[in-house]
């Protein structure tokens, strides 16, 4: 049976972990708000899927990782990227399509990867990261290191065939992979209840012989605790874990989706459990949280300035480089 979310308060993690998680959450929130603003100004194009409301999942999971551990991300990937230690300048430049961005302006919001911190990348194909992460786990096993992979994906992806195949494969080979299912209850506008006959998504782990754990995804401390335990098991060679983190988007599927299909009362309940406010409350030290916020604000301002002042990719250089592709 999957473990239900822990009742009551979560035990406090070490102070640097707690502050680090708050930094990730606050930075992601502000980054997303800035992206939405820039999108409205026409400075960002294409698809933009804000992570607002889900920040505690990435922050908690990444806090349980070493720099050498890998993550694999999704189309809603800014929070994963930031929590794994991305440079906001390079992220913002990429999302604004600049030559100085992580992917030289080739990728945009849906395709950021960051080799420096072992973020194997976001993905425009729902579910595609799940087997890639499973393979990274196999690669780790072949190389014989003690690294771990955390793969983020959401409820929609969990109904794709690659999820079932990957869990089965990871179970057979005992791969060091943590499958972090961010159940934000929607795939675009489709509620999870309409997309599966059994909404106990954590329960799919035991079906493949691997632990399935359910956690409150708006509680960074709880996510951290479960992720740390799963990561420790994976590092010890005890195989994969499925963690279902229950959470909710604070808006529509993407920046242009007003999310009118979302029940305002339910949304209000989730907003009342805002991961940002909860983590700030857990720190319970206004001076320290304000200090983090000021640092992030300055960093974000510098990132926007850097991206704004960066050049567009050169068309001639781009065309000159493609013929051997």
């Amino acid at each position, binding site marked *: 049976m999957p473990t239900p979310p822990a009742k009551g308060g979560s035990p406090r993690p070490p102070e640097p972990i707690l502050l680090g998680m708050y930094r990730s959450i606050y930075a992601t929130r502000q980054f997303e708000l800035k992206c939405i603003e820039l999108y409205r100004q026409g400075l960002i*194009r*294409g698809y933009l899927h804000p992570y607002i409301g889900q920040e505690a999942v990435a922050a908690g999971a990444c806090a349980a990782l070493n720099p050498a551990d890998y993550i694999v991300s999704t189309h809603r990937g800014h929070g994963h990227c930031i929590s794994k230690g991305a440079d906001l300048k390079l992220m913002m430049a990429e999302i604004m399509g600049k030559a100085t961005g992580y992917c030289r302006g080739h990728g945009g919001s849906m395709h950021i990867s960051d080799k420096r911190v072992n973020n194997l990348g976001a993905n*425009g194909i729902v579910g595609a990261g799940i087997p890639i992460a499973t393979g990274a786990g196999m690669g780790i096993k072949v190389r014989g290191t003690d690294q771990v992979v955390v793969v983020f994906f959401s409820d929609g992806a969990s109904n*794709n065939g690659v999820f079932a195949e990957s869990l089965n494969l990871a179970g057979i080979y005992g791969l060091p992979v943590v499958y972090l299912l961010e159940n934000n209850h929607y795939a675009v506008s489709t509620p999870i209840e309409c*997309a599966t006959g059994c909404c106990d998504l954590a329960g799919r782990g035991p079906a493949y012989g691997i632990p399935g754990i359910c956690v409150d995804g708006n509680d960074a401390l709880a996510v951290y605790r479960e992720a740390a335990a799963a990561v420790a098991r994976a590092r010890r060679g005890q195989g994969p874990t499925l963690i279902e983190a229950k959470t909710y988007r604070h808006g529509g599927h993407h920046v242009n989706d007003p999310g009118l299909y979302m029940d305002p009362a339910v949304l209000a309940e989730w907003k009342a459990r805002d991961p940002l406010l909860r983590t700030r409350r857990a720190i319970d030290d206004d001076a320290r949280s304000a200090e983090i916020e000021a640092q992030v604000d300055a960093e974000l301002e510098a990132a926007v300035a850097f991206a704004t002042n960066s050049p*567009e990719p050169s068309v001639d250089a781009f065309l000159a480089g493609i013929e051997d592709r």
Partner: protein
Amino acid sequence: MIEMMYREALRRAIDEEMQRDPLVFLMGETIAERGGSYKVTEGLWRKYGPQRVIDTPIAEASFTGMAVGAALVGCRPVIEILFIDFAMLAMDQIVNQAAKYDFISGGQGTVPMVVRTQGGAGNGLAAQHSQSLEALFYHIPGLKVVMPSTPQDAYGLLKAAIRDEHPVVFIEHKLLYMTKGPVSEEETVIPLGRADIKRSGTDVTLVTYSHMTLKCLEAAALLESEGISVEVVDLRTLSPLDKDTVLSSARKTGRVIIVHEAVKRGGIGGDIAAMLMEEAYDDLDGPVLRIAGRNTPIPYNLNIEKACVPSVADIVEGVLRMV
């Protein structure tokens, strides 16, 4: 004629076919109550109910396979794969199953299904949401491939595709959904496999399809003011290919350029060029040219994205080089 958007014309075709044949049903992601991301199926869920307008989870491989199965037991499923890029997840069912069943069963059953999907660059959606992958399907015996450029063609060809006994990959273009054009008031079915001369001319033939048809027509209008008469052949259906129309236009003008958005390497253009060499070599005044997408994944940045896809200026320049 009535003025209609491309997506409205598609909707009308589906609506009429659903009305006419209770075995036609729809499956896809958020196509029901929400009416699809590009709003093609809007209103149909309300009209025909959840039995015939079905939302699926994100399970392209399996719902495509379900369409094959439903077709084998007598239904006419029309599925929507939101981006042609995602059709790659369903390739086994399209290529190994739907396209083969009639043949490998020795004609015991056909697979009358339509895969509606959508491709093309232009909206900053980057490398996994902007591809033009028609050549992959064109390559497969047993599949029909349709790529309409106008609301009228979208309407008439989708009706024919739904009535067809064989699997049809019906590829729309994301930049066409909001384009408008006249559509016949009376019910019209446009048979698959017939090209349409969208503009007649005598100096150069442009063979094209889908969104590039609009660019070719623009180029042809510009060239007219320079005294060059351009014929624009819109293939409409890539498979079956209307060789007769292409060949007779080539024989008339003696000069042919094939224009498509998909990358040049391994594209439809190469195949048509080879066909012209084999069948009309003596009637040509010079080599056949291809103006096509650059051999690269589509980038996100606006300027370099634009540079990957043929522009009106590229087409004009290509024609000027030829005459």
